[in-house]
């Protein structure tokens, strides 16, 4: 885990195949242990686990099995159609991982090493065990019911004493595996509760099971004994089966969401080009890089360690770490931080800190400590359950003591009736059933619920804090107004600027290119709408990092050939233009005569942002905006989205402090974010939402992951959480009312065990049906 979490969150773009060079990184035996292990019998045979991307049906898995199996050196392969995972046995003397990874790639799929294999293995065992316990309980319950049936329907005298005894023995034998094996977890939890002196739902359940079994056993083997001759094997097995069914469903849901998230941790080891002694560069795995090495980082790659630029000028994107969404320029001598991206040019960096010492690792540490001090949401069921459970235990003990003098067997069964009829089932199902139904409903809308208990905290949320970049806004800039020198049309100016901009990777340049292409399409469709845009071309473009581009621009379509004009595109000072005070980001175009045009760029705010903020306000939630960007940009976005409280220029620890302050004033806060710099706040908030494109580490700390990238899911989740809370209350009220009616009956011994069991089942069913109403949720905007 430590390795996985400290590896940098550089997600490879999906669908593009890995380069051969990247796959070669896996041939380093140091990397093998992350996703493989040697066989017990033969250390040269390794068993590797990989996740296959791009699989969609069962036939895919067979195609892959064939392809991998044909690679020389591969001894065996198994591809799971449902799990999208492959297990490959290969001999380290005959093959290398890159060989069979390439075979996967040649079939049109992508393989990534399954770094979560050991977590996954454990979960698989757990799931198998739970399934096994549940099936044992189910099968034995059915058979015990068969043996119990004659005793219920027989007229007096129909059933001989010997036959009845035989049926009882058979029931006892089949109840034995249920009590010893299927009920194991209940007894284990109950013992742990006693050891730690606290109380949970499992304690009365386990107590009820143990007493029922003891009384029934005594009734079977010693009918004339202290506890009388009644047996309750059928009630017992049915009760256990119902409980295990609930647990099994809960486990399945948990596995499905957890599995989807942990898969995000799977990727190729990051590699970097390191300068060797001869001055050349070779590609090595990141964990081989040490302080003092010089590494070459290309445009588009991420910096994998903190360091100082030795050679080259570039722009870097530190949005992930600081939240500053505008590119920053870095020249020789400037420091770069791990986790940021190199945008425009290749640079050589001398490594100063690696691993735990990097800024990236410090943010991770801040995140861990924030998570440790996370405030617990008010868990209404827990608060209610504890005194209630204590009362139940006391009532059971008291009624048992009251009846003991007359008939110890009857006394114990009265106690069991109290324990069972109090329906720890209904009470314990009241919350999880509603939460599960809500989580399922949210999952269908693209929101993964990582922690069920977070739904309860979410219902109480009165403040939502949004991050700006990537959450309220899209990652790209959009073009606003264009001012031009008289005689020049806006679209012409844009065409000129775009000709220059296509030589640069800067986000602003990309925005200009995209805007130019869009206008070209519109003008083209307009069937010669007046003027011609010309076919502009820029020669000898040169980019000054952080300043702008200069070059010779010429209209190639112009019939009398005109000489090229030297132009500059960039900041006010670079273009020699009077700087103006403005809130937005501005880019200027100038030629030898001076100013030509001004392009105003703004961050593209998500179309649904304003609607979402309005909806949240309508629900009585205060909305805040918190960002690492400079305050002007933040204020602008806040105004567009209709957010009253906005704060810019926040570092990750500022954000955390702001959050703690809100919490101290008694607010229940939900945080919506995506970047690594939001990690600590997400970890510290009562409820955390991570957007689907968020870095894996941030998602790992979130309670909810919004997969579809739709901001409106946040509103839906809040509303559904409130409805869930309503249903939970109804369920708890029902459970309490039912108990208030039945407990006195059970205490005075008016309620036989079978009626108690029936009451328990009916009451549980009602609770579950009520919870299922949550699965039908009106869509956003309907109410």
């Amino acid at each position, binding site marked *: 885990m430590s390795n996985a979490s400290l590896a940098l969150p550089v997600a490879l773009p999906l669908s593009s195949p890995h380069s051969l060079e990247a796959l070669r990184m896996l041939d380093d035996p140091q990397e093998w242990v992350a996703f493989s292990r040697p066989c017990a019998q033969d250390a040269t045979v390794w068993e590797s686990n990989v996740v296959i991307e791009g699989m969609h049906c069962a036939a895919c898995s067979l195609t892959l099995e064939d392809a991998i199996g044909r690679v020389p050196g591969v001894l065996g392969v198994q591809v799971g*159609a*449902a799990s999208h995972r492959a297990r490959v046995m290969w001999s380290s003397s005959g093959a290398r991982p890159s060989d069979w990874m390439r075979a996967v790639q040649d079939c049109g799929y992508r393989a990534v090493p399954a770094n979560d294999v050991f977590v996954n293995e454990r979960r698989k065992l757990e799931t198998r065990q739970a399934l096994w316990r549940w099936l044992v309980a189910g*099968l034995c319950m059915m058979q015990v019911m068969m043996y119990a049936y004659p005793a219920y329907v027989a007229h007096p005298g129909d059933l001989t004493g010997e036959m009845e005894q035989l049926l009882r023995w058979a029931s006892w034998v089949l109840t034995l595996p249920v009590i010893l094996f299927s009920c194991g977890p209940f007894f284990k939890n109950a013992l742990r509760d006693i050891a730690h002196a606290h109380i949970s739902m499992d304690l009365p359940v386990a107590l009820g099971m143990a007493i029922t079994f003891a009384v029934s056993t005594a009734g079977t083997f010693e009918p004339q004994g202290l506890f009388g001759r009644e047996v309750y094997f059928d009630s017992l097995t049915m009760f256990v089966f119902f409980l295990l069914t609930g647990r099994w469903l809960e486990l399945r849901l948990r596995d499905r969401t957890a599995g989807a998230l942990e898969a995000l941790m799977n990727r190729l080891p990051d590699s970097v080009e390191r300068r060797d002694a001869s001055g050349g560069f070779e590609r090595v795995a990141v964990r081989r890089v040490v302080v003092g090495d010089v590494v070459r980082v290309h445009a588009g790659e991420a910096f994998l360690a903190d360091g100082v630029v030795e050679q080259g000028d570039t722009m870097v994107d530190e949005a992930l770490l600081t939240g500053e969404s505008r590119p920053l320029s870095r020249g020789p001598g400037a420091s770069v931080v791990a986790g940021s991206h190199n945008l425009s040019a290749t640079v050589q960096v001398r490594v100063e800190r690696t691993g735990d010492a990097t800024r990236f690792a410090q943010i991770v540490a801040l995140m861990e400590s924030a998570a440790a001090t996370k405030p617990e949401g008010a868990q209404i069921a827990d608060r209610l359950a504890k005194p209630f459970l204590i009362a139940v235990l006391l009532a059971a003990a008291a009624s048992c003591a009251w009846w003991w003098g007359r008939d110890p067997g009857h006394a114990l069964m009265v106690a069991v009736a109290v324990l069972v009829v109090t329906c720890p089932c209904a009470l314990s199902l009241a919350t999880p059933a509603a939460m599960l139904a809500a989580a399922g409903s949210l999952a269908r809308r693209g929101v993964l619920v990582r922690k069920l208990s977070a739904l309860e905290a979410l219902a109480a949320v009165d403040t939502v804090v949004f991050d700006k970049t990537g959450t309220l806004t899209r990652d790209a800039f959009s073009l606003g107004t264009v001012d031009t020198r008289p005689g020049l049309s806006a679209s012409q100016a844009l065409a000129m600027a775009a000709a220059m901009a296509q030589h640069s990777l800067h986000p602003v340049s990309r925005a200009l290119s995209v805007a130019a292409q869009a206008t070209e399409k519109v003008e083209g469709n307009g069937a010669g709408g007046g003027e011609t845009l010309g076919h502009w071309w820029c020669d000898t473009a040169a980019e000054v990092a952080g300043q702008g581009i200069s070059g010779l621009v010429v209209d190639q379509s112009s019939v009398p050939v005109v000489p090229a004009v030297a132009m500059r595109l960039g900041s006010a000072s670079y273009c020699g233009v009077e700087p103006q005070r403005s809130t937005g980001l501005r880019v200027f175009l100038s030629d030898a005569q001076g100013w030509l045009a001004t392009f105003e760029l703004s961050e593209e705010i998500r179309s649904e942002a304003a609607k979402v903020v309005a909806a949240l306000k309508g629900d009585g939630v205060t909305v805040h905006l918190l960002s690492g960007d400079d305050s002007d940009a933040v204020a602008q976005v806040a105004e567009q989205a209709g957010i009253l409280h906005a704060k810019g220029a926040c570092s990750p620890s500022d954000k955390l402090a702001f959050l703690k302050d809100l919490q101290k004033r008694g607010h229940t806060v939900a945080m919506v974010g995506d970047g690594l710099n939001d990690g600590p706040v997400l970890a510290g908030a009562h409820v955390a939402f991570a957007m689907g494109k968020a870095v894996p580490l941030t998602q790992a700390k979130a309670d909810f992951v919004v997969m579809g990238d739709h901001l409106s899911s946040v509103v839906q989740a809040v509303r559904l959480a409130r409805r869930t809370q309503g249903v939970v209350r109804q369920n708890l009220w029902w459970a309490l009312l039912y108990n208030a009616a039945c407990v006195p009956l059970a205490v005075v011994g008016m309620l036989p065990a079978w009626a108690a069991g029936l009451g328990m089942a009916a009451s549980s069913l009602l609770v579950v049906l009520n919870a299922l109403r949550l699965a039908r949720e009106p869509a956003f905007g309907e109410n």
Partner: protein
Amino acid sequence: MEILYLLIPLSVVLVFFILGGLWWAIDRGQFEDIEAEGARILRDS
């Protein structure tokens, strides 16, 4: 009705056999990938 003295113990034994079969199926992971096996019979190799 004397036959019941034999049949009831037999049914208990039968249940244990069925449980054994279930354990065998679960332990070999037969419930973990239900789709691929159905497709496998359609292939020649």
